[in-house]
């Protein structure tokens, strides 16, 4: 586990990612629990980004993009589930009512969804950009 393929041997006993993973999780949990939109979304983005980063650094993946997009999809599913529980029926009307008058739970669902969508976009975008340049 010591060697980190793809990196020079300098500072192989150090990594900036663990601290960032923790900060990401901290802000996600604080934001979601107390329903503070920017903190939740920012924290979630930091968290999934840091996971992609640390996995890349440890050599478990060659590129971060698929993982980032995958985690984004997971967040979307989670957010959608949380939101759907608040619907009376799965119709546009019901969705419109709930989003128009969001209760606390829908708020959290939307936070998860938005963070998820952004991650998917970044992941897909990164993939696209890299495939161009290579």
């Amino acid at each position, binding site marked *: *586990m010591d060697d980190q393929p793809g990196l020079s041997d300098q500072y*192989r006993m150090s990594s900036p990612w*663990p601290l960032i*993973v923790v900060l990401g999780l901290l802000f996600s949990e*604080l934001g979601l629990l107390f329903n503070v939109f920017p903190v939740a979304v920012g924290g979630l983005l930091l968290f999934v980004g840091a996971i992609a980063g640390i996995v890349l650094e440890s050599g478990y993946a060659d590129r971060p993009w698929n993982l980032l997009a995958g985690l984004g999809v997971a967040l979307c599913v989670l957010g959608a589930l949380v939101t759907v529980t608040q619907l009376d029926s799965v119709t546009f009307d019901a969705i419109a009512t709930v989003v128009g008058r969001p209760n606390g739970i829908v708020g959290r669902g939307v936070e998860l969804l938005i963070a998820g969508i952004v991650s998917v976009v970044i992941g897909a975008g990164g993939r696209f950009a890299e495939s161009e340049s290579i």
Partner: protein
Amino acid sequence: MVEAQLVLTALMGLFLAGVAVWLSRIEDWRSYTPLAGGGGAVGEESGYAHDEKPSGLIRWLTTVDHKDIGILYGAYSIIAFAVGGIMVILMRTELLTPDEAIIGSQFYNSLLTSHGITMLFLFGTPMIAAFGNYFIPLLVNAEDMAFPRINAIAFWMLPPGALLVWAGFLVVPFTDIQPAQTAWTMYTPLSAGVGTGTQAGVSGLGIDFMLLGLHFTGLSATMGAINFIATIFTDRGSDVNWANLDIFSWTMLTQSGLILFAFPLLGSALIMLLLDRNFGTTFFLAEGGGPILWQHLFWFFGHPEVYILALPPMGLVSFILPKFSGRKLFGFKFVVYSTLAIGVLSFGVWAHHMFATGIDPRIRASFEAVSLAIAIPSAVKVFNWTTTLWGGNLRLTAPMLFCVGAVSNFIFGGVTGIFTAAIPIDLVLHDTYYIVGHFHYILMGLLAFTVFAGIYYWFPIITGKMYQKRLAKWHFWLTMIGTNITFFAMLLLGYLGMPRRYATYTFGVGPQQIIEVLHQVTTLGAFILLVGQIIWVWNMIQSWYEAPTLQDNDPWDLKETGQFTNEWGWNERRLETAITDGGEEEETAMTDGGDPVDGSADTE
């Protein structure tokens, strides 16, 4: 409202940008710093080679070296120990007089809650992980922990956890938020904020903070446990096998197993409680799962937790005691078996904390039986320690004194435990100071004592120096006497019916005057303990900075009795490498040129 959101969004954006900038700078250093001449050739043994880590603060923020992380864990835990200690000194001062005199009862309850949580989750568990991190890889001849980055994540979970647990105290001067007053057991409905006299509304945010903080420390412990298990199973050196695995690693392995089953359950229960508090679920409300459900979940975690905090200390005693008795641990195999037995049994006794709740008497009886049974493997250990001492060639160094003290205290703690395991006796003693005395004999008397023993024993490896022996003896005797005064008086208070968790004792239980005197004796003991710990901290810091570098690779003369274990061997190789390399920038540098010829003979 909208403005606040905007400001927050901007701040969050700035923060993310800051992280990105920091990251890119670090990546730059990594790829462009030129290799220091010759430094690339360091053997795998010398984890301290300076070109493997950046310098200064960044080194500590980014390290994934198990030894650095061990030191971080240790420093963190000692700070937590100091915070928890200061909290309890305030509480004991309040209890000098029967009525509310110095701090209010609300503040007392907050301190009480935080003291318990701090000592168990922010001091006890991480302090054990500190020893594990530093020494398990050395003891089993692994290069590092199995997952160095997860190891770092596990550590960095802790500081935010502590800040959240203490958040109520930090914000109480500025807001209406109150620190949690739920006691460490967080019983519902009190902790769910239901009913009169509970912390509801804004003041209850302190509870949410604390639950979130606990969630973080739980994640940390779980990740650490996975790492210890993976390290001991898969990263052992070729010369370490199950037959010669040392006793400390055995206890850490068992403890990690307990953590793996206990902590995720606590984490889930905490989330359920947070949902009850914030999302209108009814897991622990009377109309839902009921308050007793919380007690079952909590103690299914809680009892294993007490062994999570007791097994590695028992391992430390088993490890260190023989070194100063001049002989091997008596009945090594049985110490291992009893460790495993305790590990299994500890999951079958949780309801002994609930004897007084009115649960089904048949359930109670079975839990009584298993609780009595768990005393057997505990007694096996005491027997083995005693027989190791018997006829041995004892050397009463500071680590040895603390080990012997720990055995003595553990006997008190264990015997008082057996009494409460018997239902009729427990119904009388439950929720009195007797219980507090019982578990402190183990937590202070065993856990803290063995922590001191371990720190003194390995001080030469960690710092390359020797502590001041005179101060260490003072530390021991003040701690030993203080512990026994404090907690024996608590046992007596319990017999007299003094209930636990009260800031006052003006209500008419038991003989007032004797109770008052005993409380004052308890407080006196606490102050003695405080003095002892101040001496200790002073000794550690001053010795680390000012003591001369130790030239002796075997400060405890372990080679004489054939007990020169792997971590000392590693230390010896490190010192010899340092000589042949012409010194490192680390504390272990040997600039006086020792005797390089001998030193170089067996380094490749």
